[in-house]
């Protein structure tokens, strides 16, 4: 069942799987942007570097991790209609 409204925080920590069912990583952060009056999701951040980013601490630098290590998935590449099971959409048309 596709819902039109979901709880965005349901995505936190969920494993993202690709079309073959393989794990791509866990969602730990979501980046959004203001476009006009709206706040829209721009990309999803996966992986342990994203977890550190979510906690938002400067220890990222301490453990030798920086923004480049974060796995980023653009909004149109993730199907979140079932937030408990986010699916990576194929980039092939």
């Amino acid at each position, binding site marked *: 069942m596709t819902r039109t409204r979901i709880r965005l925080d349901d995505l936190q920590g969920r494993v993202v799987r690709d079309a073959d069912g393989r794990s791509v990583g866990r969602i730990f952060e979501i980046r959004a942007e203001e476009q006009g009056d709206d706040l829209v999701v721009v990309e999803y951040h996966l992986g342990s570097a994203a977890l550190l980013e979510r906690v938002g*601490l*400067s*220890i990222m630098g301490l453990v030798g991790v920086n923004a480049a290590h974060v796995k980023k998935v653009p909004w149109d590449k993730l199907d979140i209609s079932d937030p408990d099971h986010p699916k990576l959409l194929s980039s092939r048309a």
Partner: protein
Amino acid sequence: MKKGLQLALGILTAIGGFFDIGNLVTAAQAGATFRFQLLWPLLLGTIIVIFLVEMSGRFAAMSGKTIPEAVREHFGVRFWAVPFVVLVLLHLLTLAAEIGGIAFAMQLVTGIAFQAWVLPIGILIWLFLWRATFSAIEYSTASLGLVTLCFVVAAVMLHPPRADVLSGMLPSLPTDDAAKYWLYAVSIVGALIAPYLFYFYSSGAVEDEWDRTYVGVNRAVAVMGMSFGAVITAGLIVAAAMVLHPRHIGVESINQVAFVLTDTFPAWGFTLFAVSMAIACLGAALEVALSLAYTVSQTFGWRWGEDLEPAKDARFAMAYTCGVLLASLVMLLGLDPLKLTIYTMALNAMMLPVVSVPFLLLMNDGRIMHDRRNGPISNTAAALIVVLSFVLFVVSIPLVMLGS
């Protein structure tokens, strides 16, 4: 001028809030059983507390946020849920123990069984919280708390052997009864690093509207206040060592601790002890009850503040009211305040990782702390505290089982 006053007040408050039933029981037991040998956990615990209190104050001054607020916001409610529940329970147990301490003091002076005093004391504590402002509580616990200096006076007048006292400040291994030795060592540290102390201090800094200009005052308060409190606790260890140890009086009940002052003050030592214990525990009870209300209110984002009249923050008032009520009921069950204190202090020690680790991570966040983030000294201390806290987490409960 205002800062000078804040400094004086802060130091006094730190003394007043530092010494409570936990310190009293653990110090007396340590002195009575192991003489001066357990002065080193007091020293170690005091150093840890100075660092943690200084960081709590600095964090509040730079961010305008208290510890529970910051932990929920930065780590999320899923992380905070279980520690929050455990901390609430710890607060209730600690509050019950403090109420027990006051009740026992009343029993010592009047001879009337301590259970009869529990409800009146609960009502008194509640009345203070209901009517007083934060400053009024600060002033009263501060000035009245000075009576506990009698332990220092007693310690000095008993002429303890200086060499033995000094060697007690160095870590040593027990010659016998190792389980009890380490249990007492852990409990002394646990009595010093009780979570309510930091949570109360950080909320107090926000109630007093500290900003970045208070960072210096904060450092002075942390160092001097905690040191003074440690001196008083050391005084009790020494007095117990000089009075109880030679007579082989182990501390099986709080009654026995009262003898600590009778050698030095023959006529009114008993009464002086009772008064000191009552005042120290009352001050601590107020802090614990407030810390409980702060932690709950801040976790859920309610309006909070002791300076506000209860009608303006009904949920905050309800939190401390329920806290005092529940803690009083726990004490009415007839639990032995001594045993309750030992277990609670061990639990405090066990909770140190939960209290310290998230907080120490926050102290390094440049976005909040700006130029006042932890430097190498603070971070080294922080790292050592984290290591020690995990050691304590592992050993606390087994030691309680073995040592009793």
